[in-house]
């Protein structure tokens, strides 16, 4: 079932990406438009990836269709223990069959963080779409938020990991 879901997703994505204008402007949090766009960039060329072509554009239903992972953890930005559900960055990259040397993640407000396979949190970086089972609006760091299992290890409570915890995520550039 999941397999087929993914291929449906990819088919949709292809159709969406065929019109980049629509994709880039579809920033409605309601979920009809794409919530995450992925570009392949050359390490030498761009800094924001704006010039590159969009490889994939994921809508919220597509995010739900990908392999789901759930963390229950506290964060320094929330009160008490909360439950995050989303797609592991690595699962996402596996789905689109890329194995990049570097991933730059961008927020709506153009905050950026880099992810390298050497990073401590590489394997556990989760692109969360729900908190406590609810979708997250932009006012509450949504719709997508990269989180880590902070409680699991002190390693995930470092400044570096915190700086990688990008909220209001909307773009990924892979190199």
């Amino acid at each position, binding site marked *: 079932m999941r397999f087929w879901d993914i291929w449906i997703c990819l088919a949709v994505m292809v159709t969406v990406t065929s019109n980049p204008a629509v994709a880039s402007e579809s*920033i409605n949090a309601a979920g009809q438009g794409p919530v995450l766009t992925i570009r392949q960039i050359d390490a030498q060329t761009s800094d924001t990836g704006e010039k590159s072509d969009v490889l994939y554009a994921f809508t919220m239903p597509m995010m739900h269709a990908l392999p789901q992972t759930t963390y229950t953890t506290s964060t320094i930005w929330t009160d008490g223990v909360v439950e995050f559900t989303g797609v592991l960055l690595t699962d996402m990259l596996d789905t689109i069959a890329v194995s990049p040397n570097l991933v730059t993640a961008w927020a709506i*407000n153009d905050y950026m963080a880099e992810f390298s396979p050497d990073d401590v949190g590489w394997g556990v970086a989760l692109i969360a779409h729900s908190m406590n089972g609810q979708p997250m609006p932009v006012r*509450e760091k949504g719709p997508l938020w990269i989180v880590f299992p902070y409680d699991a290890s002190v390693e995930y409570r470092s400044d570096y990991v915190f700086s990688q915890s990008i909220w209001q995520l909307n773009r990924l550039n892979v190199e």
Partner: protein
Amino acid sequence: MSNDTHISQAGLENFDVLKPNAIKVARLSALAAVLLLCFLALASLALEVYTKLEDLRGVSTDNAEWNFSQVEVDYFRMRSEIGAASATDRTSVQAAIQAFDIFYSRISIVTGGPYISHLLNDPQTATSLGAIQTFLDNWATRIDAGRVGSADEISNFAQDISAIQPDVRRISVYGLQAIVTSADHRRQEIANTLLRLAIFTTVTIVVLLVSSLFLFRFNQLSERSEAKTRMINKRLSTVLNASLDAILVMDYDGNIVEFNTAAEVIFGYSLDEVIGQPLAEMIVPEKYRKAHNAGMDRFRETGKMRVTGSGRIKLSAINKNKHEFPIELTLDMLQEGGETLFVAFIRDITLEVVSQEELVAARDRALAGERAKADFLSVMSHEMRTPLNGIIGTLALLEDTELTPKQRESIAAMRASATLMQHHVNDVLDISRFEAGKSIVNEEIVDIDQLVSEIVAEIADQAHTNRNSVSYSWSHERCDAVITDRHKLRQVLNNLVDNANKFTRDGQILVEIEASEPTSEQIVLEFRVFDTGIGIHSDDLDRIFNDFETIDSAYTRAVEGVGLGLGIVRRLVQALGGQIGVESTENTGSMFWVRLPVRKSELNWNAAPKETRNAPIQLQPMKILMVEDNQINRYVLREMLTTSGHYVDEAENGQLGVEAAEAKRYDVILMDISMPVKDGVVASTEIREGTGRSANTPIIATTAHALPHEIEKFRAAGISDILKKPIEKAQLFGKLATIQAHQINPKQRQEHAMGQTDVDIDRIQEMTDQLGQTAMKALIGRFSTEADTIVDKMNDPASKSADVLELVAEMHKVAGSAAALGVAGMQKQLNIMEHCGKTGDLDRLWIEAEDLQTLWGNCKAKLTELELL
């Protein structure tokens, strides 16, 4: 000082008394406690530092500076977006709304962060926050309601956004300030913690320093104490190893922990060989090992030990070569500090035991020699006295026959020689008797004056030969008869006077007698025998009374004899409870003194029996069985008895004696002891145990064996008396008289009457001499009438009903006459009857009366024979 190494440390530690310094220990404990506290504090501080470092490592807050700086960034983006928004361009409005959402999100992050409380503390900042919050809530509601789209609304939105600009600025700035303050605070905290860590570290170092100081001091003290202990140990080891006795120390399990030099010498082991080894296997002989181990086990169970503390005990031990030897052991137990130790002091007593055994052997040999000597003397005396018996007895018989004066002279000489020889034999026998320790003192009444006069008289002839004059005198009052052993006293004085005569030529011999306190019960007699002879050298004075030394002295060598004389004298005097001594000047003379305690006789000395040598005791004829193997002795004895009117049967050995005693009734049996076939003791036993006619007849042993231990044997065999050979008449008849006096059996009496003459011929002769034949005849005639009357009366059955007392009175009268006239048989018989009458024994009286007639008939025949009737 290699000896020092012999003391193993393990063993000697137990002798140490290391008194632990309580204060020192307490101080150390306190230090240790402080140290422990310091370490705990350090540990807790280290934990704190670690936690803080961990806190620093693990960031609990987001990058606050970034967030606060972004507040203004997001604000201005929102402001720029709203400035670009136009009511006609829906996308621009959407962008503005998204910028608002982002600002909204930023503010919520800032207010939800750790610095909000700090921000709220400042009233102005709190007001600014409130303004911003109001703006956000207001416009969020409007946006959500979809009201933002018109130009007015966009304009209002832009205005409101501009309005909050100072508030946003304030929060941004103040937030950064708060962050800086907080960072300072945190640094301060860490600095404080580190400071505390430093302080505690310093304190710990100080405490450690003090501790090490204390430990150093303690170490110094214990070193000093150890040195002291070493010195004590050294001293002790010197003492131990200088000891001649082996000293072994064992632990509770019986293993050797100590072994001194003497122990090494005695047991042959070196120290290294025995340390830690069980004592039992090293020195206890295998046969005692079980007992030893049992003893140790018993000790461990009960805590009691038989050998410990019980003084010196003698045991055996083995050395390295398994050689067993005797030891003397003292074992003690030490309990020190909960540890039990045994200390054994052991001495090898092999030499002592050997020398003791040698002493015992020497003593045994000496005793055996003594016994042999005594046996020899005893046999000798017998062998010599038996022939002497024969000689002296025969000479006595010879003297009684008709002899020429020359013959009589020769016989006297022979008798003197024989007597001298007998004297020597008796000396030897006396010694052996004294050696046996049983010299019996026969007390009797002795007239001292008479005794001394006899002794002086007896020596007179010999004194004359030496041209000496002999005399005696009382220095004060003379005393009456006393009670002492006549024979022994006579021997003593004889000896002394004899000696005085031997060593004196042309001199004087004086016996002086002194009786002190002659009036009291106890009298002390002192005899002093003076002579004017050669005297005794002062060096010899102390020795002359000794037994065998005297033999070598010039004094005794100069004269004939065996030299035992003075030794015997000393013994005799001692037996009599007296003392003897001598004072002498060489070439001037000697004075022997004898001090003798005696009892005063209650009887007048005149009443004392005189020497009865020539006064034969009057006896009624007796039937006597003589058992004697020696022909000469038989002859002598037979002659003595038959001449006195006795009937004698002879048996040549014990067996024949037993047979004779079986067949015939005798009044007395004279039994020789040493005989062939059957000796006297066995024969006597058989006679007594048999049922023969003489089974109850008194037996008198005749023997030269007069040693005390034999007498008991005789008594056990039923022998009632002893006659010492050579037999003297007086003694023989004395004993016979005693026996006769006890024989009151009527039947025996009848037998007596049958063969008795019952007439005292000497008495009758004496009276006849005094009164003349006619007068005597008249007296006898009158007595005959009285006797007839009483005999008739006693034969008359009517008398049996008569007054017995009248008869007794008559018998008394007749008995008196019989005594006066020497009709002894009648007198005796009448006395018996008189006694029976007086005591009321009438049956016996009439039986005796029957004998009286026979007796009187015999007497009449005898008197007729004497032509007096």
